[in-house]
Each structure stands twice: as C-alpha cells, then as structure tokens.
C-alpha cells in the first residue's frame, strides 16, 4: 500500500516527460505535414496539364538553365545571346540573376549523383514548390523567434497555402520569385536572430542569405532598404545595443562584398541611389558607437551634450555633402524609374509606359487583396495589435516589414508576393495568441469547476471566487463559440486557398483550356503549335518580329531569333517594333526591312474569344512607340477617346499593320452561329475592315484556332526599290 503513491507519482513523472516529448512529436509531425502540403498543393497544374514551364519569363529561365547544364558555368557566365534583341544581342551572363538557374542545376546534379535519371525540365518545374516547402520551415522558425513556437506553426500553415505566395510558386512557374521569397524570409529570420543574440555567426548567415537573395532576384533592394530603416527606427527609439551593432555591420559589409560578385549588381551597392540608405545608416551606426564611447569616457553630461551636437551636425553635413557631390558628379546614379514608380504610383503611367503596360505592375485592386489574403487581411491588424502590446526588437521588425510591404503591395500587384510572408506571420501571431488565450480560459475554468465542486462539499466560499463562478458559464460558452468561430474561419481560409490555387493560379497560360458545348474539356495548344512550326519549318537564322511579350517563348520554344523580348532593357528597340506595328504597311515594311525581319508573329483571339491578344495590347504599342517616335499619335487610333475595331474605328486603326495582320482574311470566317462573318468574339463586334490586302507580307502559318498568325516578309522587289530611290 505504501508503494502505491510512489509508483503513481513515478508514472505521473514519466507521463509529464512524455507530454513534452509528445508536444515535440506533434510539432515535428505538423511541420512535416505542412512541408508536404505546401508542395502538393502546388501540383494542380502538373496533374491537370503536364509537367511544363508556365507563362513568359520562366521560359527564359528554363532556356538559360538548359544552357547552363549543357555548357557549364563559365560559358554561361560569358554567354552572349545572338538569338534575342537582334541585331543588338544580349549579354546574358551580365544581365540576369543567376541564383535560380544555379540552384536548379545544383539540384539536378545532386539528383543525378544519387542516380535519379531526371530531366532538367522536371527539376525546373518543381523548383518553386520545393522552395515553397522550405519557406514554410523558415516561417516556422521565424514565428518562433518573434513570438513562440505556436505562432511559428500557425505561420507555417498559413504561408503553405496562402494564394499570394502560391500565385508565384506553383509547379512550372520557374521564376526568380520562387526561390527569392525563401531567400528573403531566410535573410530576415537570420538577421532578426542575429539582432536578438548579437551573434557573429548568425549575422554571417544573414550576409550569406542576403547574397543568395541578391543572386536570385532584383527584389533584394527591399532588404537593403528595409533593414537600414529598421536599424534607424531602433536607433531612434533608443534600442541601440551592441547586438544590433554587430548584426548590422557584419551583415551590411559582408553582404555588400558578396553581392558585388553578382555581375548584374556589380558596384551598385556603392554607386546607386537605391542603396545609399544602407550606407548612410552604416555610417550613422559608427557615429553612434563613437558617441557611446565618448559618453563612456566623458563623465560630464554638459560637455557630452555639446559634443553630441557638434558631432551630429558635422556628420549629417558631411554625409549630405558627400551624397550631393556623388549625385552631381554622376558617381551615384539617381533612382531608376522602376524604383521611383514604387514611391509614386502614378509616375510610371505618365513617364514610362513600358512599365505601366505590364499587367502585374498595375496598382492592386481591393478584390485581389481579398483574393490573395482572404481572412489574413482581417487578422493582420489584429496581429499588429498583439505585436504592439509586446514590443521587442523582433516584433518591431515584423511590424515594419508588414507595414512597408503592405504599402508596396498596394502599389503593384506583383508585390503582394513580398507582403505575403509578413502578413502570414503577423496573422499567425493573432491566431495563435487568440486561440491560446481562449484555451487557457477554458482550461482554467475546468479547474475552477473542479475546485467549485470540492468547495461545494467543503462549504467554504470566498467572495472573489463566487464572482468568478458567477461569470463562469457565460465566459466558457463565449470562449467555445469564439474557438469554433476561429476554426471555422481557418477552415474557410483553407478552402478558399485550395479553390484559388486550383482555379486561378494553376493554368500554364501557354496551353489554354475551355469547356466545350457538351461540358468536355477543349485544349487550345496554339502557342506551341506555332512555335514548333517556327522551329521546324523556317530557316535556322530566321528573324521573328513580334510584340515583346512573346520574345522569350519564341526563343525558348521556337529556337528562332527575335527582335525584342521580355527583358525590356532597350525601350527604343521596343518602340521601333511598336511603331512598325502601328504604321501603315508601306511605312512598316521599311522598318521591318531595316531590322532584317523574316517573319512577323501576331497573337489574335478573335476566333476563340481569347482576350489577351495583340489587338487588346495594341494601345500600349501605340503609346510606347509614340513615346519615342512622335510620328505615332495615340488620338489617331481612337474615336472620341474610344478604342474600337468595328466600322466606327479610326481610319488609321483600320489600316495599320497590326490590324491587317490580325484580321487578314478574317472577314471570310464564320466564328459564331447567327453572327455575320468576321465577327470578333474577343471584342464582340463585327470587324470594320473585312477586305484586308497585304502587299509586302504573306501568310506563312496560322494555327488551328487562329491564336497565333505568322507572316512571311516577301523578298524585296528590286524595281520597287529603284523607283523609291528615283522618285522618293
């Protein structure tokens, strides 16, 4: 009998130890499940279509990766690409962020080493989901660092399925962002860890994380501006510490030196206006340290105040003068248009049409916030509240990250991606804290009930406990209701995320799918049909002119030289193409001949009702062309400020090259039952010019659904040229 309690307590002890182990086990298994979930939720497109590269930019990345696997790193680094930007060419090695390609090739080599006979395409397709899985792990550790492990777990789950991130990381979207978000979050996490611990090792890790980020994506500018801003805020709020000093200096100096190794970035860290904030903060940090030291040495506060005034003024003056001199002498380059358009959303629209023409550079609509964040949008402010309630170096960081990235997400649609990790983390804090508070309430009540029952038998009541007992039923039910509400919301979130992923973000956009009349799935594979036709049936050195959107795809899939592509580095060249497309045919042919073009490719959705075709993009061609060549005037193509293609269209519109190429012989075509021939289904009108005649170009190929039309430039008629010279 005497041994019984002892054994019971032993059992209890071992049980207690087990709960901790159980907690660890549950945490690890949840993390594993989240890791797998993040990967498989991004595989919709592979299952529904095939293992293929999506969209536009990924095709360039894929092509360069292929080049890297075939020719090795040094050839890749020195690659001059003759197949794009004809006749200028492109120095690929010096104008790209190689992080993504190197990562994919590394994974490929490792798999090959382990005797997995995979194709590099499969690796490229699955790189983004793989890194998304890794991001969930980083989110867990980040959440653990700024709040607790519960918040970390919630953050991992939220980010695993958040549509804002999925939009850029589904299988096949082989783009820089896929690995960059991982690198971004990793850098931030390690930096916060470095600030919290003051450890040189962690700050070194953050420098390397920053290096990886720089090698992967141009969005690294966000890091190099956010971290100094964060440091500045800490300095101002009097949170300066030796830990911060070590973390920032090490990260900045080493990160900068490492980043300079990327050729595309080069000396920008010391020469470009966008990076100057980091340098300014670095010097400010030294001034702070120096002042700290002086304060330590001087015991007289008055003397120190005077010294402080002099030092700060002179430091600011020296910094200002240096910056001014750098700007004036041209050593420090001014901010680029892209950066400027982030600070002033209307800037691009007025000054750089090429940036404004990209749909993902548009200001974000309210609906797309809802679409991409769902309940996180409401949890975000709640999380901010909790962060402010428990301010620390880490929570200040996440608050600043959240607020700044939220602002940028409002400016440009594609930057929702950058905001997503912050929103997930802050929302996770809200969810975790709320649920924790509620469960604590429920549990404590159980105890109270127990004590209450014992009390009832004992008959001794204190007034305060009676008060608690009175509020008990209401509080308990409320907590349960709130808990259910929270879980309901979270489950709605999961449903929404899956639905969005499946419906909106998992189509490759190179293959279009539609529902047929009988509910069957109809596939429009016209893009690949046209590109493969180009690849097989045109001369090896043929030059293809198209709007820049299709440049990467033509070089990657068609294997033919293009005039302009999605790397929009030369605005004049693009404007020349825009001018050719918006001129009359006999004017356009001179531009076409001067560019040595053999084929002209246009995308036309009039037969299928595909709306993102060249006719709908045409106003941007006019705008971009007109921005460089004032001969092209936008009002010439509009009627009363309205853009139309039917009978009421402007005469210049009806006879420009783009119109002719899209609608050539379309007037004979019956597209829809009960509609006249030449009925454009994408715009829902009967076209205005059905009798399109081409003089210098001839139809070379049109795909089965007319989505891509390719025209051959006829060889020059010598006599015609002679006449031009004589009389022109």
């Amino acid at each position, binding site marked *: 009998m005497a041994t019984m309690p002892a054994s019971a307590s032993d059992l209890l002890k071992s049980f207690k130890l087990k709960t901790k182990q159980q907690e660890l086990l549950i945490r690890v298994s949840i993390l594993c499940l989240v890791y797998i979930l993040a990967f498989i939720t991004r595989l919709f497109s592979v299952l529904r279509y*095939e293992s*293929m590269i999506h969209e536009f930019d990924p095709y360039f990345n894929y092509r360069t990766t292929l080049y890297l696997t075939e020719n090795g790193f040094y050839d890749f680094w020195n690659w001059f690409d003759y197949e794009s930007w004809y006749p200028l060419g492109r120095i690929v090695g010096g104008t790209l962020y190689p992080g993504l390609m190197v990562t994919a090739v590394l994974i490929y080599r490792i798999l090959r080493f382990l005797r997995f006979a995979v194709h590099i395409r499969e690796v490229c397709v699955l790189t983004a989901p793989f890194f998304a899985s890794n991001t969930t792990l980083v989110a867990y550790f980040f959440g653990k660092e700024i709040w607790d492990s519960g918040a970390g777990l919630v953050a991992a789950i939220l980010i695993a399925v958040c549509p804002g991130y999925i939009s850029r990381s589904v299988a096949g979207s082989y783009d820089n962002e896929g690995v960059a978000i991982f690198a971004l979050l990793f850098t931030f996490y390690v930096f916060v860890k470095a600030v919290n611990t003051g450890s040189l090792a962690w700050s070194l890790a953050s420098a390397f994380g920053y290096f990886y980020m720089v090698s992967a994506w141009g969005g690294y500018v966000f890091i190099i501006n956010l971290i100094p801003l964060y440091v500045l805020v800490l300095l101002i709020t009097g949170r300066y510490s030796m830990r911060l000093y070590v973390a920032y200096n090490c990260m900045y100096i080493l990160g900068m030196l490492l980043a300079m190794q990327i050729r595309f970035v080069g000396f920008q860290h010391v020469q470009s206006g966008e990076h100057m904030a980091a340098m300014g903060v670095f010097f400010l940090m030294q001034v702070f340290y120096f002042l700290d030291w002086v304060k330590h040495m001087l015991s007289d506060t008055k003397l120190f105040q005077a010294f402080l005034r002099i030092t700060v003024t002179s430091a600011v003056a020296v910094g200002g003068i240096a910056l001014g001199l750098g700007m004036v002498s041209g050593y420090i380059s001014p901010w680029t248009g892209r950066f400027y358009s982030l600070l002033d959303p209307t800037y691009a629209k007025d000054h750089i049409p090429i940036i404004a023409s990209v749909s993902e550079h548009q200001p974000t609509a309210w609906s797309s916030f809802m679409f991409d964040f769902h309940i996180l949008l409401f949890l975000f402010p709640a999380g901010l509240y909790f962060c402010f309630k428990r301010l620390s170096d880490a929570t200040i960081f996440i608050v600043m990250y959240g607020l700044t990235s939220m602002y940028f997400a409002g400016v440009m649609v594609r930057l929702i991606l950058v905001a997503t990790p912050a929103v997930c983390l802050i929302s996770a804090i809200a969810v975790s804290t709320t649920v924790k508070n509620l469960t604590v309430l429920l549990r404590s009540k159980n105890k109270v009930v127990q004590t209450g029952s014992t009390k009832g038998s004992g008959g001794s009541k204190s007034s305060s406990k009676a008060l608690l007992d009175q509020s008990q039923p209401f509080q308990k039910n409320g907590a349960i209701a709130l808990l259910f509400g929270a879980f309901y919301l979270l489950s709605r979130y999961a449903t929404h995320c899956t639905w969005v992923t499946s419906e909106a973000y998992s189509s490759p956009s190179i*293959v279009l799918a539609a529902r047929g009349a009988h509910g069957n799935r109809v*596939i429009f*594979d016209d893009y*690949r*049909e046209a*590109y*493969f*036709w180009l*690849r*097989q*049936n045109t001369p090896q050195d043929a030059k293809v002119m198209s709007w820049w959107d299709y440049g990467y795809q033509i070089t990657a*899939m068609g294997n033919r030289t293009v005039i302009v592509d999605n790397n929009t580095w030369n605005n004049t060249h693009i404007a020349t193409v825009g001018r050719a497309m918006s001129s009359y045919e006999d004017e356009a042919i001179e531009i076409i001949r001067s560019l040595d073009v053999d084929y002209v490719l246009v995308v036309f959705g009039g037969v299928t009702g595909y709306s993102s075709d060249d006719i709908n993009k045409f106003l941007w061609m006019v705008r971009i062309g007109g921005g460089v060549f004032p001969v092209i005037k936008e009002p010439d193509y509009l009627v009363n400020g309205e853009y139309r293609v039917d009978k009421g269209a402007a005469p210049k519109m009806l006879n420009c090259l783009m119109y002719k190429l899209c609608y050539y*012989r*379309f007037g*004979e*075509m019956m597209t829809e039952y009960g509609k006249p021939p030449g009925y454009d289904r994408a715009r829902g009108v009967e076209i205005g010019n059905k009798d399109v005649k081409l003089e210098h170009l*001839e*139809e*070379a*190929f*049109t*795909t*089965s659904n*007319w989505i891509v039309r390719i025209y*051959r430039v006829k060889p020059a008629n010598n006599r015609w040229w002679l006449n031009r010279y004589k009389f022109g």
Partner: protein
Amino acid sequence: MEARIRARVNLALTFFALLFFVAGSSPPRQFVISNAERRIDLSSHIINVHLTLKVENAGTRPASEVVLALTPTEVDHLAMVDASAIKGKRKKTTSLRLEVKPTELPDAPPIDTKYFTIYLANPLNSGESTTLEVLYVFTHFLEPFPAEIAQSESQLVFYHDTALILSSYHIKQQTTFIKTPSTKVESFIRMEPTNRVGTEIKYGPYEDRPPYSISPIHVHFENNSPFAVVEELVQEIEISHWGNIQVTEHYKLIHAGARHKGVFSRVDYQSRQSSNGASSFRYLLARLPPRVHSVYYRDEIGNISSSHLRTDSLKSELQIEPRYPLFGGWKATFVIGYGLPLQDFLFESSDDKRYLNFTFGCPLIGMVVDKLTIKVVLPEGSTDPSPVVPFPVEHHLEL
C-alpha cells in the same frame, strides 16, 4: 564480377535499306521466260511491283539459279526484293519463299545492269518450267513535278520505267499493268499496244523480245497520298528487371512530296478541305503490340494532346496528329514512348540464355524509314549479347 559491374550494355543495331553482298558465280543463261506479267502499283509513295514469271529451262543441264535484272536507278531505290515459287494450279496454289541474293555478272551488257539471283529449291530439269513470283518494293521513286506546288494544287508525280521488262533472258510474251491512284493522268508514253482503262494502263502484250531490250516510258499522274518519310528513327528498347519493356521512338518526319510554295491559308484549309492541301496529311497511325501501356506522344516542347489510343486483344492502334498539318517539305519531330509486358517478348531457353523477340521496324503505317537505329538496353548483369536479324545489319556494342 567486373562484367557485372559495368553491366549496362547498349546494343545498337543499324540497318540500312540497301544492302550489298558479294557472292558470285555466273549463272548459265539457259532459261527462257515464256510468260511475264508485271503489275506496278503506284497508289502511294511506296511502289510495289509484282512480277510473275513463267520460267522454262531451255538448256540441256538442270539449273537452279534464275537471274533478275534491274536498272541502276531501280537498285538505288530498291527497299526490298522477295521471290517465291508457285506450286499447283488455279485455286490450290501454294507459294514457297526462295532465297534471293545480289549477284555480279562478269559479262555484263553495256548498260550498268544489276543482278539478283533467285535460288530455286529444286533444280529445274531441261524442258521443265516453273512459275516465280517476285515482289520489288521501291521507295523515293516518284519524282514530284512540278517540284513546288501551292496549297490549292494537287501533287503530280512522274514515274519512269521501261515498257519492256529488263531481263537477261529471252521473253516470249510480256504484259505490264500500271495502276495509278486516280484517273487523273496528265500524260504517259505509249508503246503500242497500249491501253488505258480507268486507273489502269496496260502495256503489251509484247511478243518475243530478246534479252536486254528496253523501251523507256513515263507516267505523269496525280498522287495525293501522304509522302511521309521518317528521315531518321531511333528506337530504344529498354529491358527492365521489373517486368517491363520501355520503348522510346524518336522520329524525324518530313513530307517528301512536292514542296509547299507560297502562303498557307488557314481559312482555305479549314473551309475548303477537299480542294485545299490535298497532298498534305494530318494523321498518322501506329500499330503497336497488344497490352501496351503508358503510351505518350510528345516533342521537345511538351506533350502533344492530339492522339488517341485504341486497344484490343490483338493489337493497339495509336492515332497521332502532329502539331500542324504537314505540307510538302515541312518537318516535324516527335517522340512516342510506351511500355510493354516483359513476358510477351522475353523468352528463356534451356541453355540458360534469354531471347528478346522484337519486331524490327517502324510501327507507323505507310511510312518510309531512311535510317533506322535500334538500341537495346540490356538489364544489369547481362553478358555476351548477340543479335539475330534475318538480314545483314551493322551492329556494335556500347558499354
């Protein structure tokens, strides 16, 4: 042990359509052909010539070697020659395959005639006669003229031959029938008696022609059958330990007919199918072995969705459609892959060896293959592989 470690053995066989042998004994010119009938089928780009010869031994000694004569152009385009002896009368005929080998004759006549010798199963005694059936298959033999056509035109081709059968023997009576795919014949050279009825042109009968008499003719006619040529086919047969054979076929396809000239108009092609792009083709049919599984059809830039597979217990038919219709001179490359159950093709013999029994050739129907490479990937641990092919091939072993 070493052999087991470097166990992945690639066995590559290369087969060229034309084969040359040196075998030579001069056959006695003692035969007389009492009756020769030739039927030439020009309905596709693969030309089948059925030659029925009634051979009589006019010599004194028994003889067993009958010599066939072909012009050099014919030999250049010859894909296959096959001979059989016909036994029995009328309906109860049986045919016996005979061996045919290329031969060099020392006393060749002025034109560079090439010879093939048929080895009769039993020597023919003096005065006896027998009936031989010879099948020639020619490829790349029709010459498109005009060489370039527009989308709305049909394809016209020239067929060159001789009205008299080239032979090293005296032919007592001969007739030639040429079958064209349609009644549209632009022109043909007559050699009386010549008669044209419907899709058939009849030359002859001609009586008592001496050896080596020829009379060149041509037929210029419409042939819109698909001139589908596989320029190069690489077939990889990978044998797995796990009960599966994986076949991967890399095709380089070309339309080898009259070249397409000028525009390709989709609206014409879609709305006036009968008169437009008559010589182009869209569909190809592959006949695959039964119980085929995991079939795919793709190219360098991804899956091609336009294919259908029909399977039954005897065969599987895969209908594929290249990404675009092929006009003259247009090319397409693609890959077909499929898996097969191992037990259907791999057999074990009593001497502890295993045999892979696989059909040599291309599963696509109506296709000419210019260059065929078959790679057999043997499983780990295989030793001493050797190919057995009924005709000579180049082969080598890759380790």
